[in-house]
């Protein structure tokens, strides 16, 4: 019980070290989701709305990439960014930027694959109406993304969930440097191995609370949107 009490005290007292870790974690995950959305949403929409040779292989690949092992992604990004790697001159290894890159690679396929399915389902429904209204290709994409917006929020949440909970990739490319690249998940892993269970548990409580809060907010937004927009 002593561990739990100490953990709660850390959270409730807004311990500065803990808050810095939480803040960095959120920034990295949100930046990764934003970048992954910029990449994944157009890719998903393009695959959903176009027909080309090998399309089914692309869909299978996108779906398979949702299960990318984080440690492998971390290793690949590490090799890319390490001093002797092709992008070593950028000097990004063991920085938050490297962590954002790794998480973007993990999250983009999730957003692309789920957005592809969502947009394609809506396209089947809308195809005749949009053709009858003589709507051009760019407006079709915009219409489908707009009308699927509530479902796409859930897609983004799935991406955020993956990023927020991920530890394998960012610990490899970030190095878990205190005050610089230490996030909630990497800190939990480290503190647990060191035996500092109160801090690990405190971070765990915050992480779960954030995930629940983000999902609750998205759920509320979705319900309100459906109520007012149909």
């Amino acid at each position: 019980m002593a561990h739990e009490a100490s953990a709660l005290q850390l959270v409730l007292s807004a311990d500065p070290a803990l808050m810095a870790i939480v803040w960095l974690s959120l920034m990295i995950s949100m930046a990764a989701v934003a970048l992954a959305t910029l990449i994944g949403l157009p890719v998903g929409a393009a695959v959903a709305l176009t027909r080309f040779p090998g399309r089914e292989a692309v869909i299978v690949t996108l779906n398979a990439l949702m299960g990318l092992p984080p440690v492998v992604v971390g290793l690949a990004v590490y090799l890319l960014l390490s001093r002797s790697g092709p992008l070593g001159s950028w000097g990004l290894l063991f920085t938050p930027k490297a962590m954002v890159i790794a998480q973007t690679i993990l999250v983009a396929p999730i957003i692309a694959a789920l957005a592809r399915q969502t947009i394609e389902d809506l396209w089947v429904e809308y195809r005749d109406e949009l053709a009858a209204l003589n709507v051009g290709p760019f407006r079709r994409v915009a219409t489908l993304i707009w009308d699927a917006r509530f479902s796409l929020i859930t897609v983004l949440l799935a991406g955020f969930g993956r990023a927020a909970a991920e530890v394998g990739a960012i610990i490899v490319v970030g190095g878990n440097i205190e005050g610089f690249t230490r996030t909630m998940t990497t800190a939990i892993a480290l503190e647990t191995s060191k035996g500092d269970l109160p801090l690990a548990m405190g971070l765990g409580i915050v992480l779960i609370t954030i995930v629940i809060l983000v999902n609750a907010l998205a759920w509320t937004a979705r319900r309100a949107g459906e109520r007012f927009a149909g």
Partner: protein
Amino acid sequence: MRMLAFDLPIVLHDISVFARNVAILDRVQLDLMPGAPTVVIGPNGAGKTTLLRVAMGLVAPAGGQVTWGGRSGVPPARRAIVFQRPVMLRRSAAANIEYALSSAGVARREWPARVEELLSIVGLSGLGARPARRLSGGEQQRLALARALARDPEVLFLDEPTASLDPAATKAIEDVIRAVAARNIKVVMSTHDLGEARRLAGEIVLMHRGRVLESTPVAQFFESPKSQEARRFIAGDLLV
């Protein structure tokens, strides 16, 4: 103000459409002329929906040629269609109409007045702010009509517009169709309902197994049908 590019007459010349080697339309010959509504009747699977889609320009025939006002390959700028189960865009009723106005190139400043006018024509005044998907089936069908009319069409295709509606909703739709026809918009609609065909049609097209069996003025069709199938259909026999 109507543009002067006419889509009428629509001429279907020897049209065939196949699905998995089965003829959905089999060498169909049909002229759709300006005037009173043309009502396409026939049993399920006769090819009514496909005929409307070909005439609208949504389905390319495997054989034959369609011309609109003597031209082929005319985009559906002056034609509109309401499907049997119209899809409501996930936005308000008014926004559904605005979307159609926008895609038809109507200037934004004209939208409020046009939306009010179109909602009024279809009897949905006051429901503009309502989410379209929360309207009743009959209201959604009328909103789909308003959305089609937003394109200021010369020809309006309606695919079984009253199927699965109750008598009150059916009457509301039929009233709108009469009002539309009175505005010199050519209505081409399909129906199973012979009573509805009699109430609305100027011309009847009877289809069976992908072929047009008769294309005659409504009075002639009901008083002196030419084909055996037409006599059986009018008598209420099942055409299979």
